[in-house]
């Protein structure tokens, strides 16, 4: 076999027995390219869909892809696939930073964590060697403290991931941190917690080579030029991200009446100009921070003074957090927002589902259905926001209720799930289906709950297509879901595709791995993965009834910029019908045998049999 960026090697870590063994990638897995493709195929093959996500039988697969560690720009991410304790679906979750490249320098395509450790454990991965260490010294510590400990103990050059107290306590929306980047969605932190893995440190001693270096270098050069040009453009989204971070677009979203505000009741927020990317850049010392090899450097490190007068640093907040801990909570105070973000970092929690849960709790508080001693549950209330976040992380008082996820929390308050902005139990990302119909369909049909990663957000919010139209959205959503799944096999940053044409990806893959692949085949990998995920979810008990929006989406938005905008129930169901048809699924949302044959995965039909 010729040279390839892929090493065809994963490490299986048996946590029960504290052993690790190399696992050569079998031939049929190679067709899934890497990243999300590897993770999905391995999980679907090895973990039955009905598995309890927090049981030792669940697995957590951490992977990289063919472009990881190379000079290809915007390829820093690594991918976690597991069964989510929040959504009970298959989950894929991503973080940027430097961990992905280090896994590749270790000569690995990924890790498979199996079982559960008898006591709290730190894993040290040095190339293909795995050692198990006690996590006693960092138990109960924040993600930043834990990672500092790893660097002190194992050397300053290790790259890390860790969970905080929320993961230890199996909070349903606990996330996994990697330095300041986060595997945010779906509760992967709780899965690591259930396995008693507090953190992982990785050190690789090797380098990365590609199959066809000259061709690859040319592709890198072309792509860098595209990205540099985009960064230099005033109104290019990637350019705006590169100047002030992902929060650059808040004014645009607000202006379109699509900024979810006060638990999605309003579509605009008068305080947006105090908490958007430009506001942070104006008000606070700001330094742009990049992930590995990225010329866009959208991470913005801010120095700010906390309400108690102490000085502090925060990389962020990111756009989605400006919504979930900002506008959606009627919080227009950038310091409060930063402190709220820091609590989520400290405990290791997804700012989205956590923020959405706080929004719901505040609404419940204002309508007299929920109370918590010592907290005045009102929108915009500093003590209530920070107090609820800490209580979720500690599983204390009503925080313990919220930590169980939306469905269980709503049950306890008498069935108030329809005001909980969630799909498949995952909190809404920062977008309003009533204003963006295609994004609404993408949220409803996402395999991991209300997810914005595979939605036509850019096209709808910029007006490139009619955001309020229903026509044509089903086809668009399917196309984006398949395409993004394909690029998540690499594992590309989501923003890379904003600038890079689809044809570039198979060229990159071929030059890196020597494996010839056409654009059509590349996109088919994405569709195949989408269907595998769907089959897993059906096997876990889901179907059309779960591809739904909360009732609030059928009630008019308030606020002058989008007053009255609403999702029409019949038209939504019409989009869903059309979407299933285009997918080759039956009207219950189950892939047909014919479709599975076409995708070359007929043997997986058994998963979808009830």
């Amino acid at each position, binding site marked *: 076999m010729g040279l390839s960026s892929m090493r065809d090697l994963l490490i299986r870590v048996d946590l029960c027995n504290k052993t690790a063994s190399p696992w050569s990638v079998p031939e049929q897995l190679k067709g899934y390219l890497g990243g999300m493709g590897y993770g999905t195929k391995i999980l679907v093959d090895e973990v039955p869909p009905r598995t309890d996500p927090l049981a030792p039988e669940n697995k957590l697969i951490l992977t990289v892809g063919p472009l990881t560690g190379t000079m290809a*720009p915007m390829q820093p991410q690594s991918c976690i696939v597991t069964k989510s304790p929040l959504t009970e679906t298959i989950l894929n979750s991503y973080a940027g930073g430097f961990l992905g490249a280090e896994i590749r*320098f270790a000569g690995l395509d990924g890790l498979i964590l199996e079982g559960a450790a008898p006591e709290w454990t730190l894993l040290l991965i040095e190339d293909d060697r795995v050692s198990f260490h006690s996590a006693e010294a960092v138990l109960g510590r924040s993600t930043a403290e834990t990672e500092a400990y790893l660097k002190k103990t194992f050397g300053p050059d290790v790259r890390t991931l860790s969970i905080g107290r929320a993961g230890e306590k199996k909070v349903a929306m606990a996330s996994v941190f990697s330095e300041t980047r986060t595997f945010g969605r779906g509760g992967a932190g709780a899965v690591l917690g259930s396995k008693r893995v507090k953190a992982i440190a990785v050190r690789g001693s090797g380098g990365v080579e590609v199959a066809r270096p000259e061709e690859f270098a040319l592709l890198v050069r072309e792509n860098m030029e595209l990205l*540099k040009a985009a960064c230099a453009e005033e109104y290019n989204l990637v350019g705006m991200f590169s100047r002030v971070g992902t929060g650059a677009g808040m004014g645009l979203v607000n202006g379109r009446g699509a900024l979810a505000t006060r638990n999605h009741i309003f579509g605009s927020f008068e305080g947006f100009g105090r908490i958007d990317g430009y506001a942070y850049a104006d008000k606070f010392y700001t330094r742009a921070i990049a992930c590995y090899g990225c010329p866009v450097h959208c991470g913005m490190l801010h120095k700010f003074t906390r309400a108690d007068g102490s000085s502090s640093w925060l990389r962020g907040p990111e756009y989605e957090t400006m919504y979930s801990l900002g506008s959606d909570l009627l919080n227009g105070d950038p310091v409060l927002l930063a402190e709220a973000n820091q609590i989520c970092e400290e405990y290791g929690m997804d700012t989205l589902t956590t923020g959405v849960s706080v929004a719901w709790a505040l609404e419940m508080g204002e309508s007299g259905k929920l109370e918590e001693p010592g907290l005045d549950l009102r929108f915009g209330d500093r003590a209530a926001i920070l107090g609820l976040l800490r209580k979720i992380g500690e599983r204390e008082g009503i925080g313990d209720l919220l930590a169980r996820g939306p469905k269980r929390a709503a049950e306890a308050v008498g069935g108030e799930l329809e005001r909980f902005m969630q799909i498949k139990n995952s909190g809404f990302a920062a977008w309003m289906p009533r204003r963006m119909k295609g994004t609404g369909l993408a949220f409803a049909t996402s395999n991991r709950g209300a997810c914005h990663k595979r939605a036509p957000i850019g096209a709808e919010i910029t007006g490139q297509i009619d955001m309020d139209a229903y026509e044509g959205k089903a086809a668009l959503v399917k196309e984006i879901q398949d395409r993004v799944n394909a690029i998540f096999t690499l594992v590309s940053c989501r923003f890379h595709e904003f600038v890079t044409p689809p044809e570039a990806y198979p060229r990159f893959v071929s030059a890196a791995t020597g494996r010839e692949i056409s654009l059509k085949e590349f996109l088919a990998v994405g569709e195949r993965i989408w269907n595998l995920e769907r089959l897993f979810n059906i096997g876990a008990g889901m179907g059309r009834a779960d591809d739904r929006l909360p009732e609030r989406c059928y009630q008019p938005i308030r606020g002058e910029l989008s007053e009255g905008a609403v999702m029409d129930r019949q038209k939504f169901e019409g989009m869903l019908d059309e979407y299933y048809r285009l997918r080759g699924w039956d009207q219950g949302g189950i892939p047909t045998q014919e479709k599975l044959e076409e995708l070359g995965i007929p043997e997986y039909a058994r998963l979808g049999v009830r």
Partner: protein
Amino acid sequence: MPLGFDIDENLCTECLRCLGACSLTKLGRVQPPLARIAVKRQWPEIPEIQVCRFDDCPGRPCIESCPVEAITRDPQGLVLIDRDVCTGCRACVEACPYGAIWMEASGSNYAYKCDFCGGSPACVRECVTGALVQKGGS
């Protein structure tokens, strides 16, 4: 024009493309820890870029420090280590005020440093923010 780099660490985003490009040029593979340039992380404060300053280095103590005269400055301003002469004594590593000379880890035990890619450094071409800018050379 004096040879070296204009370095503004305030502009460094710590993306490490310079290290990637350097290792790819020198070793034929991307391996940042073996690059002839380093970005010392001082999170959250700005990092320190460690690379030879050539004509901007006062006194160029590495040349002085070498007991076997393996380090020389050529007419263009390139400060180079002659591997055939280097004994691996580490004196230059200690002497460099920028922490920009390293020892090869594997067996051979030579000191290595930036050679400005002979006049057109690969690292500079990757730096999109202008933290690292070429001065002089070709």
